[in-house]
């Protein structure tokens, strides 16, 4: 090679070097993005139905949890989760109508379900479509079937209630069964299911629990004075209302009218704070209880609260620290941990709904992985919810303030009903 030719090559290299460097740099920078696989969640919502009032907290907690996971976990795995909300107005027919469109538009690998209508409409379709659904609610007896595609991180409402009754009976002392009255409603199969589960436990354990009466009302009861008077006369020591806040308010007014003070047990969707808002004063719920297999959102410095505060500080969490926010966080974190474990099992670019389900059924999720929002979960093919090792938390109003009455209360064995 002559000197001139060498010089021409040198000049050419120098001339193209910045472009080559830029291309190489761009290549390096874009490499992770190119390797990242995006998966979609369908996020079920109720903006215009009976639970529209709690959507701000439920959906408000889903978004920052996904954003946090994408930044902290997904990026390292080469996965990005996106999601889209679908308003089904808490109507099973609407869910059934939306589902084909959701599949076509989003091709989701998982669904973040909302409640009974999702289960009723999709439990027959999800196995065929091979998409698992993660619920925020407790489970249902009518959906207690093997080989689940729907996963409740909590046991049934009846499981949660009887865990509370056992706790209250121990707190009360004495040997007789705890006398319970149930306010139920024919408006939803879930409400009847809750009642039947409690009655089943009472029948199997007459030494622990006695159901003095199950009262059926409308979802917005007209007046419950007559009914409450009857159950109080029958010696009810606690009134179980796992339906809605309207029934709690009507029962509370009836108790006030009669001058009686019998505690009311509520659940996560109609808890003491929601019912206090509906009746207009937190002090009126003094001594009442709520029970669920999740963390109680008190002001105590718990890992769940620290996680929530971190999401608020770094990921724009707009939800309030409420039971509904805990529900939303719990279901989203479970779904995200399932994706994470599936990616490690089959590879980040090979995740499918079926693979996620397999992972959920074979890989326990520890409480630490869920920031103690939920107790450790071990799903099996026997039921849509973990059938062993579950505990519940009990919230109450004490001295006018929201507080945890008990945590880690074991869930007893409850036979199918």
């Amino acid at each position, binding site marked *: 090679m002559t000197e001139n030719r060498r010089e021409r090559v040198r000049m050419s290299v120098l001339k193209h070097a910045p472009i080559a460097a830029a291309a190489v740099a761009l290549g390096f920078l874009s490499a992770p993005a190119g390797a990242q696989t995006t998966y979609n969640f369908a996020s079920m919502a109720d*903006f*215009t*139905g*009976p639970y*529209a*009032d709690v*959507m701000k907290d439920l959906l408000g907690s889903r978004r920052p949890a996904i954003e946090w996971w994408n930044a902290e976990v997904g990026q390292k795995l080469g996965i990005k989760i996106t999601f889209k909300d679908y308003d089904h107005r808490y109507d099973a027919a609407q869910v059934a109508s939306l589902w084909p469109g959701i599949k076509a538009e989003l091709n989701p690998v998982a669904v973040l379900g909302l409640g009974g209508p999702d289960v009723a409409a999709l439990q027959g379709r999800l196995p065929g479509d091979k998409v698992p659904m993660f619920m925020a609610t407790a489970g249902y007896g009518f959906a207690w079937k093997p080989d689940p595609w729907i996963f409740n991180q909590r046991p049934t409402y009846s499981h949660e209630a009887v865990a509370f009754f056992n706790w209250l009976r121990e707190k009360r002392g004495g040997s007789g069964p705890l006398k319970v009255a149930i306010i*139920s*409603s*024919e*408006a939803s199969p879930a409400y*009847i299911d809750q*009642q*039947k589960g409690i009655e089943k436990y009472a029948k199997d354990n007459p030494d622990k629990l006695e159901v003095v*009466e*199950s*009262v*059926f*009302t*409308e*979802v*917005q*009861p*007209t*007046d419950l*004075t*007559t*009914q409450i*008077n*009857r159950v109080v006369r029958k010696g009810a020591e606690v009134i179980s209302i796992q339906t*809605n*806040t*309207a029934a709690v*308010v*009507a029962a509370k*007014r009836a108790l*006030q*009218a*009669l001058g009686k003070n019998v505690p009311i047990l509520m659940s996560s969707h109609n808890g003491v704070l*929601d019912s206090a*808002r*509906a*009746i*207009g*004063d937190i002090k009126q719920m003094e001594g009442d209880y709520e029970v669920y297999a999740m963390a109680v959102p008190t002001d105590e410095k718990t890992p769940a609260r620290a996680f929530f505060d971190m999401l608020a500080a770094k990921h724009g969490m707009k939800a309030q620290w409420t039971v509904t926010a805990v529900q939303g966080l719990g279901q989203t974190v479970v779904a995200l941990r399932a994706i994470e474990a599936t990616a490690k099992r089959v590879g980040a670019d090979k995740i499918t709904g079926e693979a996620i389900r397999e992972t959920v059924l074979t890989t326990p999720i520890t409480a630490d992985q869920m920031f103690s929002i939920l107790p450790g979960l071990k799903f099996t093919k026997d039921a849509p919810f973990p059938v062993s090792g579950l505990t519940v938390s009990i919230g109450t109003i004490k001295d006018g303030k929201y507080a945890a009455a008990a945590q880690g209360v074991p869930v007893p064995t409850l036979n199918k009903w």
Partner: protein
Amino acid sequence: MIDFLNYLINGALVGLLYALVAMGFIVIYRASKVFNFAQGELVVFGGFIVWWMVLAMGMPLAVGLPLAFVAAAVFGLLIERIFFSRLVGESVFAMVMVTIGLLILIRGLVLVLFGAQVRPFPIIFPLKPVIFGDILIPRSLLFGAILTIIVGLGLSWFFNRTRPGLRMTAVAEDHQVAMSLGISVKRSIAFAWILGALLSTLGAIIYLSGKSLSFLASDIGLAALPVALLAGFESIAGVLLAGLIVGIIQGLVTAYVDPAVGGAVGTVFPFVIMLFILFVRPTGMFGWKTIERV
């Protein structure tokens, strides 16, 4: 026996509340032959107006309640002016479809104006029940029943004995004929919607006193439907009797049959009775018999 009497009385009082809501169906039907699917939503809207005046704005009951009735009347008038004044002479089917649209519209309007939260409803009637020995009578339902009977008899007199009432009856018969007789169909329909909105607000006050307010309250429209159908859509006095029948049957079935069979009968049974009576007497117990000559 005492329980039976308690449930009987409670059922009768609840039935009269249903009758009050059913009157809303009837006054609108009598003026326009339109079955208003949005009657339950009018109850919800009336309830939210009361909540807004009394609790959100902090007005005393003596001021807030009359203002709420005025606002409800204006709302009823607006509904007629915006939707139904343009439909005079159109088919009944078109008007019924508009009431379905109205149902959706009112739901959206309430969400936009008042939000989705469950609201506490003010305590209008004292909580303490009236007690006779072992018999308890909820005060809100007792006062509600008295008001319902007064309003029912008053409206019955108005529709059957006064000129404006008879004009509205003529409008219900046929818009064209009423117009040819010099009767203002628009004014009659507007008045019916105002009355419907006022009755719904009164129903909301009795129904929700001291309780909570959300969209669930619109279910009372559905509960009042068998009462209106059982009475026949024209008779206001008849609706009181129909209300008592439906309320007592529902109350007793819910108290004694539901626990035995695990629920679901109490809600359905009034509709079964209604269907049976309509099967025997298609115009309802007190509905007008229409004779058409070709």
